[in-house]
Structure formats: C-alpha cells, structure tokens
C-alpha cells in the first residue's frame, strides 16, 4: 500500500507527503473496519452460533436471511435500537468509555495484520510487538468496565480478566520469540515472507520446538481472548456476565464485537506466525488475482482456527482461577522459555534449517491428524448406530 501512496504523493507534489500517507492509512483503515472487521465479527457470531448448535444437536439461528445468515445484522440493529441503560450508581464517564476502549484495542491490532502480500494497513517493522502491546488497551477497557459498573460481580470479572491477560501475555510473547528468531524480523510481512506456501516450509515445522510453540501460542491466545476453557472473566455460571453484567444495548454488543473480532485476530496471528500466512504458489503474474488468492488463503487459514476455537468452546468445561494461574506460570512460561532456547540451539546446529526435520515433523502432524480422524469416525459411527445420524 505504501508504494501506492508514494506514487500518489509523486503525482501530487503540492500536497505534503506525510499528510497523504496519514490520510491514506486512515482511509484504508476505515475501509478495513467497516468492510472487513464489522462483518467478520458479526458473521463470526452467526457462524459460532450455528457451529455450536450443530455440536449441541440444535439448529441455531435460521430465520433471518438464508440459513439465518443475516442474524448478525438483525442482532446489531436490535441492539442499536435498544435503550442504553446507564445504572444510577455507576461511574458514568468511565462506564461509557470502557466499551470503546476495548473495541479500539482490538481494532488497532488490525493495523499490523496482513491480509495479503500488498494488503496491510501498515507494515510496521515492529509489527508483532505492536500487536501484543496495543491489545493491552483491551485490559484497561475491561478493568474500567468492571470497576465503573459498581457491581462486585463485574469487579471480580474485571480483576479476573486483568490477571489473566497480564499473566498470559508473558508466555504469549515468549512463544513468539522462536518465530522472530527464525525469521529475523518483527514485521508481520517479514515473518510471512520468511515462509513459503508449501506446508513443510511453514515455521511450525521448522523444528520441534516451534511446533510446541505453535500449540502454546494457540492456548495462550485463547486465554488472552477470554475464550473457553479460559472464559473466567465472563463465566456465566459464576459471575453472571462478569465485567459486562451491567451493560445493555449497543455497549454490551461492543464487548461481544471485540470478542468475536478477536477470534479472527487470533486465527490470523496463528496463520501468519506459524502457517505461512498469505503465501500462495506463484500461479499467475496478475497482481490483482494474486492479491485475491493471498487474501483468501490467509482468511481460510485464520478461519480454520476460529472454527477450532468454537469447537473447543463447545467441548471443554472452564478451569478455575488458581488452575489458570498455575497453568500459566508453572507450565506455559517454562515451556515457552525452553522453546526459545531450543530454537536458538537448533539454529546454531542447522543455520539453514533441516529439510529432514521439516518433513519428519509434517509426517508426525499428519499421523496425529490421522489418529484423530479415526477417533472421530468411530464416534460418528457409534452416534449413527444410536440413531443420531441426522439431527
């Protein structure tokens, strides 16, 4: 995008370059927010409800639009039209600002998330650092929401959330280290460029430590996104709705928007860091076609992990706060540190990487998927035998 803006600047010398760049980025950012983030977050809510429903042998939203596809729009409109209840005892300014801060935190992360080779709002050279940093705004927002609600359940939710996000930021950062070591850059585009389109060239298969890192990253990302089994801050059965208890209408929806949008961020980060991002084989020289292919590649990869997160949410119970902390500090942090060291050693041993190791790791993962698929087949067959074939 920068080239395009530079070209624009060259064509219009009378306009200051910086202004053009800022305006261009703002325009592109607005485009991303309204054409991509809002629909994706909304549609994710519909997909999640449908996926959940299938897993729970229900049907799910199916009335608005084909297959209930427009349910998210209906929900959004409904919430926009609802009364924005501000309880009397809340700290009003903070109560009002908090949802926006949460949304700002997650939307700002999209600045450095690549959608394709040339499709990125800003290819920051500290891209991945920026993403982990800017998402901390979400914590502040959640804490604000929890505190300003003047409700002990909200407060507990806010505190849980802050504890959780701060703690899990550490292993999350540490699991990114090996990727940065291998690709030698913090830029998300640089990390993608260091991988190829073929699976064995992905970072997750670079060495065994990176494979573990990849799993740890996904776990930590789920925890950062307050997703089951780490959904303690809004644990319905314990804290009613956690920090969002007192919110209603659009403000409440903003929290959910952030949650569903965050899912895509998690997926896109996993895809970018470990799964080759938008890399596609160079099948054509047409840049537009290539950009489209790249966009769909990373979108599908990201959405696969969104789906996995939904699946996990529908399957697992919730862990307890002390177990959450123990998991983080006793297991994830040491393992992540070990992975960083291991990757460093591996890079000393094989400065160019090792094709044998890569192929072997691909084989291992394929074997795991095969075993898993057989188990799924067994369960499906059993369910069908019981008469649950078509629900």
């Amino acid at each position: 995008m920068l080239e395009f803006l530079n070209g624009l600047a060259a064509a219009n010398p009378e306009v200051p370059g910086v202004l053009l760049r800022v305006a261009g980025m703002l325009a592109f950012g607005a485009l991303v927010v309204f054409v991509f983030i809002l629909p994706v977050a909304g549609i994710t809510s519909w997909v999640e409800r449908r996926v959940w429903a299938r897993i729970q042998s229900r049907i799910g939203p199916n009335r608005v639009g084909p297959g209930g596809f427009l349910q998210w729009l209906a929900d959004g409109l409904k919430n926009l039209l609802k009364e924005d209840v501000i309880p009397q005892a809340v700290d009003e300014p903070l109560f009002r600002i908090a949802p926006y801060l949460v949304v700002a935190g997650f939307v700002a992360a999209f600045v450095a998330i690549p959608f394709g080779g040339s499709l990125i709002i800003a290819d920051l050279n500290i891209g991945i650092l920026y993403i982990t940093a800017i998402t901390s705004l979400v914590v502040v927002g959640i804490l604000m929401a929890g505190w300003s609600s003047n409700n002990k359940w909200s407060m507990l939710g806010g505190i849980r959330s802050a504890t959780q996000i701060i703690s899990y930021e550490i292993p999350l950062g540490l699991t990114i280290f090996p990727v940065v070591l291998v690709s030698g850059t913090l830029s998300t585009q640089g990390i993608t460029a260091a991988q190829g389109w073929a699976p064995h060239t992905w970072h997750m298969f670079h060495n065994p430590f990176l494979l573990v890192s990849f799993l740890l990253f996904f776990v930590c990302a789920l925890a950062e996104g307050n997703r089951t089994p780490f959904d303690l801050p809004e644990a319905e059965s314990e804290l009613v709705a956690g920090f969002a208890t007192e919110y209603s209408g659009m403000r409440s929806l903003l929290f959910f928007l952030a949650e569903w949008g965050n899912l895509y961020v998690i997926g896109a980060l996993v895809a970018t860091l470990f799964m080759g991002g938008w890399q596609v084989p160079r099948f054509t020289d047409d840049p537009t076609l290539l950009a489209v292919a790249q966009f769909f590649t990373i979108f599908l990869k990201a959405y696969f992990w969104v789906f996995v997160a939904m699946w996990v949410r529908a399957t697992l119970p919730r862990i307890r706060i002390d177990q959450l902390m123990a998991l983080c500090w006793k297991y994830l942090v040491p393992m992540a540190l070990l992975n960083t060291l291991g990757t460093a050693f591996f890079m000393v041993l094989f400065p160019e990487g090792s094709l044998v190791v890569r192929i072997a790791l691909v084989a291992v993962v394929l074997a795991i998927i095969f075993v898993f698929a057989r188990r799924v087949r067994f369960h499906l067959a059993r369910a069908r035998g019981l008469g649950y074939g078509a629900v």
Partner: protein
Amino acid sequence: MEGLSAEVVVFFFLAGVAVVGACGVAFATHIVYSALSLMLSFLGVAGLYVMLDADFVAGVQLLVYVGGVVVLTLFAVMLTQGIRDVKVSNRSAGRGFGLLTVVAVFALLWRSFQAAQWHRPVEYLAAESSTAAVGNALLGRYVLPFEVASLVLLAVLVGAVVLTRKETAESE
C-alpha cells in the same frame, strides 16, 4: 507556511495529550482517574517516540507502561477501593514542598533543553528498523549495564516474593 506542517500539528497534538495526561494525574481528585490519565500521558509519549522513528521504544512503552504499569496500578487501586467502599483520594502534600519539586524539575528540564542539539532529520526516514540497533547496543556496548539491571530486577523479584510470603505466613 513551514511552521504548520502536518508533522508539527501531529507533534503538538501528541505533546498536548501527554501534558494533559500528566496534569490529569496531578489534579484528578479520584485516584482511578489519575491512573487513567497516566495511561493517556504514556500513550502520548509513545506517539512522540513514533514521531522520532523510535518505533521499538514506542512498542515497548505501550507494552510495559500501558499494558503493565497502568494496568497493575489500576488493579491495585480497584482491588482496594471498589470492593470495600474505601474512599481513596489524592491530597496535596504541602505547597512549599511541591513548589520546590517543581522548581527542581524545571531546572533539570531547562538544562537538558539547552544541552540538546536540536538536529532534526530533514526528510522522512523510510521504515528502517530501530530494533536491530537497540538489540546491538544492548548486547554490545551496554551489555554490562544491561546485565546489572537484570540482576537488580531479579533481586527485586526475589525480595518481593520473600516479603509477601512472610506476610502470609504471619497471618496464619
């Protein structure tokens, strides 16, 4: 008009954010608002770092100060206040002492202001990573201070653990 280029506008905006934030910290009557103003101030400073092309420092500023310090401050304040209905407020602590501090700080600022070489890069620096430079400096020229700092931090960490453990033991 040279003096009002876009960069200048952005600079004054960010500086304003930082200063307003700082004033908020000092003048807010509510400690939660103070903490949030602190965040605003940090954000402004992070923006200034970006303008100085020190993007790594800006990132770290966000990560450590906004994500860490402010959140922990808020955390501590909210834990003591929201739950137990404790009234926590700022109180001025002696005008004279305050004035002294202000004078001292301004003297220091003035000195650094005069000592600085007000050299500005003329043209926009293309995105070039300052990360590598910072890394090289930390593990090259400044490796000793870096290691000493990390040792000090470790000692602080251990000390904190010991202190809290002792208190818990006493309570039983």
